[in-house]
């Protein structure tokens, strides 16, 4: 149940019933929640329309679907490949994520990921993976890359899709888009969205609840909340435990003390990149990186069962008890 909560006494909380639509995509859930009257047919229409559009984009960006644009790019032996603008935009977003994460997020490491899973032999490291994307004069884009480079968009695509869906729902001041746990939220004036940070140790438990609010009389605020970690996608290979977060410095599953990291900032794409970077970097270096990035908040769970947070996070924690 999704409930945007009124934090302004002038706003009638009972009048704010959410309209939610959801489907399954990208190997997880994809949901849109609109703060509107429960019987608002426009909200239902807009939510379904954007959900279908995002779902179609997600299918193009999946490496697990043989007919996807990403699979076609990964299978193409040519150095230069023409791609459609949506894939080009997400590859571009991958470069943004690489910069925002100080190099810890690299979408060109599919082979290292598959090697970590034991599906293909490990390549020598560091592997060269120079590539670029540029947009042509028309609607197309071009990828240039060294032979053998294959892409895994993963969380970058989810963050990008969440942000894009929020853009497409610009007419709605209160919106939350859930792209498999990576969230893009627009908080209308006088509203508060409560975001539970999942506790991976216990089913249906939370490490904390983050409150995203916008003061009455101000413009809607935009947020990105994302979580990354090593406790869901993990497996054993020849006696060793591995996970899906590849450290670009080693080409292997990151050796880290961070089990899970959650970041709150201005966009889902950036939050996802920084959360992943914090896990790969480890708690000490990761917190320093997050502080340099100026995030609004971050909560890390370590393998010592510590919950670490940046000081800025305290402003987002539930301190009112009004919920």
């Amino acid at each position, binding site marked *: 149940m*999704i*409930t945007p*909560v009124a934090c302004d006494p002038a706003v009638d909380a009972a009048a704010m019933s959410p309209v939610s639509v959801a489907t399954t995509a*990208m*190997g*997880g*859930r994809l949901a849109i*929640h609109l703060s509107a009257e429960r019987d608002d047919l426009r909200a239902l229409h807009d939510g379904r329309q954007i959900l279908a559009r995002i779902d179609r984009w997600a299918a193009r960006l999946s490496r697990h679907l043989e007919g996807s644009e990403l699979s076609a790019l990964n299978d193409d032996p040519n150095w230069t490949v023409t791609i459609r603008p949506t894939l080009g935009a997400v590859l571009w977003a991958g470069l943004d994520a690489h910069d925002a994460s100080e190099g810890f997020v690299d979408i060109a490491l599919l082979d290292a990921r598959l090697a970590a899973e034991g599906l293909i032999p490990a390549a020598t490291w560091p592997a060269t993976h120079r590539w670029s994307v540029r947009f042509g004069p028309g609607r197309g884009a071009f990828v240039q890359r060294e032979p053998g480079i294959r892409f895994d968009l*993963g*969380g970058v695509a*989810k963050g990008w899709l969440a942000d894009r869906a929020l853009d497409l729902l610009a007419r709605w001041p209160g919106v*939350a888009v*859930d792209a*498999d*746990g*990576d*969230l893009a*939220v627009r908080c209308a004036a006088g509203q508060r*969205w*409560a*975001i*539970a*940070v*999942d506790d*991976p140790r216990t089913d*249906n438990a*939370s*490490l*904390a*609840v983050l409150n995203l609010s916008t003061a009455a009389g101000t413009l809607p605020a935009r947020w990105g*909340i*994302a*979580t*990354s*970690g090593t*406790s*869901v*996608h993990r497996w054993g290979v020849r006696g060793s435990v591995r996970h899906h977060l590849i450290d670009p410095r080693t080409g292997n599953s990151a050796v880290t003390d961070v089990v*899970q990291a*959650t970041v709150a900032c201005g966009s889902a794409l950036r939050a996802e990149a920084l959360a992943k970077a914090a896990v790969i970097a480890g*708690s*000490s270096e990761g*917190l*320093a990186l997050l*502080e*340099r990035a100026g995030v609004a908040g971050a*909560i890390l769970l370590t393998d010592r069962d*510590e*919950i*670490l*947070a*940046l*000081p800025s996070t*305290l402003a987002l*924690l*539930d*301190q*009112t*008890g009004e*919920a």
Partner: protein
Amino acid sequence: MTSARTPRPGTAPRPVPRRPDPTRLRFGLAAGGLAALSALITAIATPASTGAPVPAVSTPASAPASATTVVQRRPIQYVQLAPGQSAPPGAKVIDAKAPKPITIVTLVPAPAAQQPVVIRTTQSGKVIP
């Protein structure tokens, strides 16, 4: 040439003024010095402050009141060298102009289970019951 005054005839010699006994003052100064030295030693020997205190996070009305502890930790992670100094083995050296890293350990209050939440941020692929 020296000049020595002789008392006038018929006048009694002036009594030599007595100087105050310095013993009491010396004891006082010694005690004050010991107190200052003791304070100085205490300031040097005591570990540095762990940073400005963070106000305790109040829990929601329905949350357990015991889960309100907020602990702040500022570990030494990096070495900043002064001119002429060299780094100890294994130390990570940072630029003096770089922002100082801060690590905060916060025991976040457990959220109330009955909160009307909520969207949940999770790792990808996590199945929510």
